[in-house]
Every structure is written in C-alpha cells, then in structure tokens.
C-alpha cells in the first residue's frame, strides 16, 4: 500500500513491503488459529439446535470452495501477466479474480441468509456464535480482498500498473492466497468434519 522509505536499498535485498506482508500473514495465522480453535473447542457444546449436521450444506459449500480455489489460479495468472507487461490479460485475470471472490461472497451471503431462515443466528447457540464469527471474519477478509483487487484493476485501466508495479500485485496476491488457504482449513474443519 505505502511506499517504503527505502525501496531501492535494503540489507537483505528483499522488498520491505513483501517482508512486512509475510509478517502480517504470520500474525493472521494466530488470528484465524484462535478463531478455529474456539470453534473446535465449542463443537458439540450447544445446548440447543440447530446443529452443524442439520444445517450445513456440503454440496453448495464445495462449489463455493472450488470457486475460491479457482480465484487463486486467476490471481497467479494475473500476476504472471503483470510481470510480462501484458495489459489485456492482467486486466482480465484481475477482473476474474475479483469476480470469483465476489462469487464466493455471494455463496456465503446466500448461506447466511438460509441459515437465518432455518433458525440459526449469531445468538441462537454456541454453534451460531462461533460459526458466524469465524466464517464472517473470513468473509470480511475476502471482501477487503475484492476491493483491493478492484483498486488494482482501476489502476491497470488507468495505465498505472506496468510490470514495474508487479510487487503491488504480488502482495495483493499473497493476501488473496492466504485468505484462500484459510478457507481450505475452514472447509475441512468446519464443514467436512462436523
């Protein structure tokens, strides 16, 4: 996001922003680690339904998981295109990534609404509280990612995303893939192992 004080010269030769971003991702590991741990610790402790088995929709979520997974592919292809200096494809892949991300959010919104109709809200029981806060936090990350990608897309359309700015895309990509990786864990632990 911001330009580091010394973009040109670092003691390790590594880009400062990339370094910062990896550390941020490390920090996020503990954020999601705590959220997921809490979900697991509270699994099966709700005193009233609905329970995960009753309500989770595996086929639907499998599709949304796949969508997010493919968005990661689009992301790496976008980065490759930006590095090549290929304007058209970088725009297309950025757009594709953002759209797939938005698609995932759509699935999630649909899921949340359905759950609320079936009687599961934040307040219903421990499952509701832990589930919505965990997946909601993840969803918020995806949302921020989509906005970020769209920003990059606009920059690209303005012609300000040449291959010299590949690092901007690479960092957005790190964020995007990390959010994907978190979902890989959530999908298994929350959906498949319930």
């Amino acid at each position, binding site marked *: *996001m911001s330009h*580091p004080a010394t973009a040109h010269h670092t003691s390790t030769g590594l880009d400062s922003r990339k370094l910062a971003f990896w550390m941020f991702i490390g*920090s996020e590991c*503990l954020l999601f680690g705590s959220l997921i741990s809490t979900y697991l610790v509270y699994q099966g*402790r709700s005193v009233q339904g609905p329970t995960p088995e009753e309500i989770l929709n595996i086929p639907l979520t499998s599709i949304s998981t796949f969508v997010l997974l493919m968005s990661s592919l689009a992301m790496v292809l976008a980065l490759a295109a930006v590095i090549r200096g290929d304007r058209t494809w970088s725009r297309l892949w950025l757009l594709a990534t953002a759209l797939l991300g938005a698609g995932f959010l759509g699935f999630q919104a649909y899921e949340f609404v359905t759950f609320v109709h079936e009687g599961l809200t934040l307040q219903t029981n421990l499952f509701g*509280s832990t589930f919505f806060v965990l997946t909601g936090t993840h969803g918020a990350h995806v949302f921020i990612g989509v906005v970020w990608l769209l920003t990059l897309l606009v920059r690209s359309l303005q012609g300000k995303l040449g291959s010299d700015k590949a690092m901007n895309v690479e960092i957005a990509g790190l964020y995007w893939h990390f959010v994907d990786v978190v979902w890989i864990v959530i999908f298994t632990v929350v959906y498949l192992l319930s």
Partner: protein
Amino acid sequence: MATSVAHQAPGGPAALGSRIWSWVTTTDHKRIGILYGVTAFAFFLLGGLEALIIRLQLASSGNTVVSAEAYSQLFTMHGTTMVFLAIMPLSAAFFNFIIPLQIGARDVAFPRLNAFSYWVFLLGGLFLNASFLAGAAPNAGWFGYANLTSTQYSPGLNIDFWVLGLQVLGVASIAAGINFIVTIINLRAPGMTLMRMPVFTWMSLVTQFIIVTAFPVITVALVFLMFDRFFGTTFYSVAAGGDVLLWQHLFWLFGHPEVYILILPAMGIISDVIPTFSRKPLFGYAVVVYSGLLIGILGWGVWAHHMFQVGLGPIADSVFSATTMLIAIPTGVKIFNWIATMWGGKIKFTTSMLFAVGFIAMFIIGGLSGVMHASPPADLQQTDTYFVVAHFHYVLFGGAMLGIFAGIYFWWPKVTGRLLSERIGKLHFWLTIIGANLSFFPMHFIGLLGMPRRIYTYDPALGLDTMNLVATIGAFTMGLGALVFVVNVVWSRKRGTPAGNDPWGGATLEWAISSPPPVYNFSVIPEVRSRLPMWAEDGMTPVPETPPSPVHVPAGSYWPALAATGIIVMAIGAILKTLLITLGGVAVLVVSIYAWSFEPFEV
C-alpha cells in the same frame, strides 16, 4: 513532496500553529519516539497516581478513602494503564528513537505507518481514560475474567470502554511490531550483520515478534467479548453451554507472552548500558541473544501457569509447571552474563548504571518468586494474593521500569543534546529503589499471611495493618522519586551539561553522530566492520559532520493521524451505540488509507 535538508530550517521561530502541525504530521522516527516517550510517561504518572490512591486506601484496614466501586476501577485502570499505556509505549519510544540509529538507518521501514501507530496509541489511551469522565472506568481487573464482564454482571459502559480501548491499542501494537521487524531485518547499514546488532535491537526484534503473534489472540478474545456484549452472542455465557475458561486460556495465551514483551526491551537496554559503564564488551553476546530468542519461544508454552487454581488436572499442572520452570534457565543465563560482563571491568556508577544494576538485583527477587509460583501446589497458596502482587511488581517495576529509567538516563543526551543531572538522578535512584523495596517486599508476607489481592478493605483481625502501612510509605517514597525525576527533566532541559556526540564512550553506532541527531541521522551511512564499531580499531567507516550531498527527507503526512482518528471515531460510535458515527469513522479510515496509499512519499 520530499524536502531537502536545506529547507528544513531547524529551530527557526515558526508560528506555534505550524510547529504543532509539524508534530502532527511528522514521520521522523526520532520525533515519533519523543511523542511516544512523553505520552507514555504521562500515562505512567497517571497509573502511579492511581497506585498511590490504592495504597492510601490500604494504608490501614478500615480506610474509606475511596468506595468499593472506585477501588475496582482504580486497580483495573492502574494495571491496564501501566501495562498497555506506560511500559509498552515507553519501550516503543526507545524502539523508535534508538533502533534506526543503532542499525544505521535513515528512518524506519514505513514512516507513515509508524506515525499511525503512535496516533492510534495516543487516541486509544485517551479513549480508555475518557471512561473516568463518563464515571464508568473499567472495573473487572486488568485480565477481565469472563463471565464477570458479561452484560449480566457488568451492565454499565465500564467494560465497553475496556473492550474497545484494548482492541484499538492492539492495532497500534501490531502495526508497530511489523514495522520494526522489517526495519531491523531490512534497513541495517552495510556490514551490520544480525550477529553484529546491538543487544537492545536484538531484544526489540524478539519483542516485536511476540507482539505480532500474541496480540491477535487477545484480539480474538476481545472480539468474542464485544460480540457478547453488543450483539448477544454466547461465547462466554454459561447458560448457553459456554465455558468461562475459554477467556482465561485466550487471555493468558496472550498475557504470558505479554510479560516478556514488557521485560525483553528492558533486558536489551541494560545489555547495552552495562558494557558501556564496565568498559567491557558484553560477556557471551551470542548466548545472551539466543537466550532472548529462547525466552520468546518458550514464553508461548507456559500460559496455564496463571490458571493452576482452576483445576486443570494433575497432568496439565505438571506440564505447565515444568515448562515454566524451564524459562528460569535462559533468564538466569542472562543474569550471569551481565554479572560476568562487570567482572574484571571498570565500573562507573552513573545513574544509568545504577538503574541497570538495580534491575538485576530486583529482577532476581521477582524471578525467584516467579519460580515459586511455577510450582502449582505452592501457587495455590499464592495466586490471587499479595504474594503475586509482590512478584509482578518486582519484575515489572523492579525490572521493566528500572530498565527503562536506565535507558532514559543513558540515551537522554542523545535525544536532547544535554545530560540529565547526575546528582538529582542519584537521588531519584535511591528514592526509587528504597521505596520499591519498602513497598513491594512486605507484600510477600502480606500475601502469605492471608491477604487476597483486589480487596478494597481487609479485616483488622488479619494482623496486616502495619505491613500495609509500610507498603504505603514505600509507594509514596517512589512517588517522591518520580517527582524528583520530573524536576531533573525540567532542570536539565535548560541547564544540563551539553552532551557532545558520545558522553559515555558508548560502543554502538548511535554514538557516532551528533546529539541530537540531524533529521537525516547519518550524513553518510557507515559501513560497519565490528560488533562494537565505536570501540574497535577501524570498526566502521567515518561519518562526516555534514553530508557531502543533500539528503532528502520526506515531508510529513497528515493521513496517518487522520486514519487513527477514523479508528477512534469508530470506537466512540460503538460506545455511544450510534451506528452512524461508527460508519463515519469507517469512511474516514477508508479515505485516509486510499489517500495515504497514493500519496507520493519517498526518502
């Protein structure tokens, strides 16, 4: 937008408005360091004032200086203030001012992010203390155990202030943590290998790593609590099947690493002070560094030693007891290396050195009582009594705070260009060390003889009036010491001896440049060839007084301060339960982030 040095007329008679504005928009790590230092010290005095009222109330068994409710607010705010608003940001003041100088950098890696951290810290601290004005300061203790913090048992705004305030402060800490890690890894001068870094920089690096990993955990715990209080979730609700121990585990998963966040910077400080005044290099540099790393890692595996009394079962008790005791080994190694550094040296008892030695003497006591806590059966008689209060004041005040004072006296001349008075300084030291022991030593007995902590009144039949009075007298002696320090600061601003580049004959890079350092720090970034560049023959390439060519420093930016304002507005909206204000805060934040990202800003 970059200004060159020539334009930045230092000390020019600028209008007050623009002087203030230049501080608000500053991105200079040195000025931000000063801001951190001044703010945090003010909070320290506030926390100390709270402590004095606490001690006044406890001076005798029947006292009614404050009400029960006010007392709860006082100890909660005292603990919270000292930990989050005094010691941590005082350390941050050193990170800011000293680290770039010690590694030979022009600034930190992300100067505007750095300013942002400060403003978030300042506004977060003010927000937390604004609760006093609302008559609803947090009142559930600094570790705010669930379910006392639930709406059912704490219906007022007290806990709302606490939850929101701590989350805001967490943002500042994590942002600063990442910033300093990158700074230390990436902005070292040529030749400054990791194993040539000053120990203070090393311990800061470990500290930042702990901050970056531990704060997300408390953030999650606080988010749960916030959702419980604002949106009716059931994380800590026993009736819904929730478990009150969840909070305790999450809190102490953060809370124990936090105590090393508080002590490691101080350990780093004295690792630089002691060699300087012993005229000897640090004994076992590598061992001191590795033991710091080990403490940082081991610190993650001991959290449940704060929970022996909840009945975790014999196996968990044994495991956590053993891991806790292990930490005594790397810590002991550090102590022995400091003593060995002085061994055979030529010790000059400056005020800074006195505080460093005071640190060692006091920390040993606090560490040993820590080991007594580490034994679960023994701890069952100690936990939640004044014995624990004694333990953690020996390590926090006797350790962290004395270490910080050592650092203040050590680097003050670098920051201001003038020395603090040694005469007043020594008075400060003796009042502080005598007061601290007078206050905290009897607390061991007060605890073992039956006084729980967090009680605003106690039964005269316990027979503890005299000892409590002594503790109170000690506290006021410390308070006097603090006032003497303030006098010293005021006095030496005008009349202190000019320091020159290197008043102590220090070994590390920061002593190579003028005091106070110019905006751009090093006129030419030196090449470092030794761990003790100032002491070694040809330890570094020379740093000329004036830069051979103009050095560009960035102009300030007000976006960081504005982004911080956005965050605090969000918290204010939450306290007022007004969604519109919160959304306004979000808008300010988003706009600031975008403006900040696209603002041209180069060094």
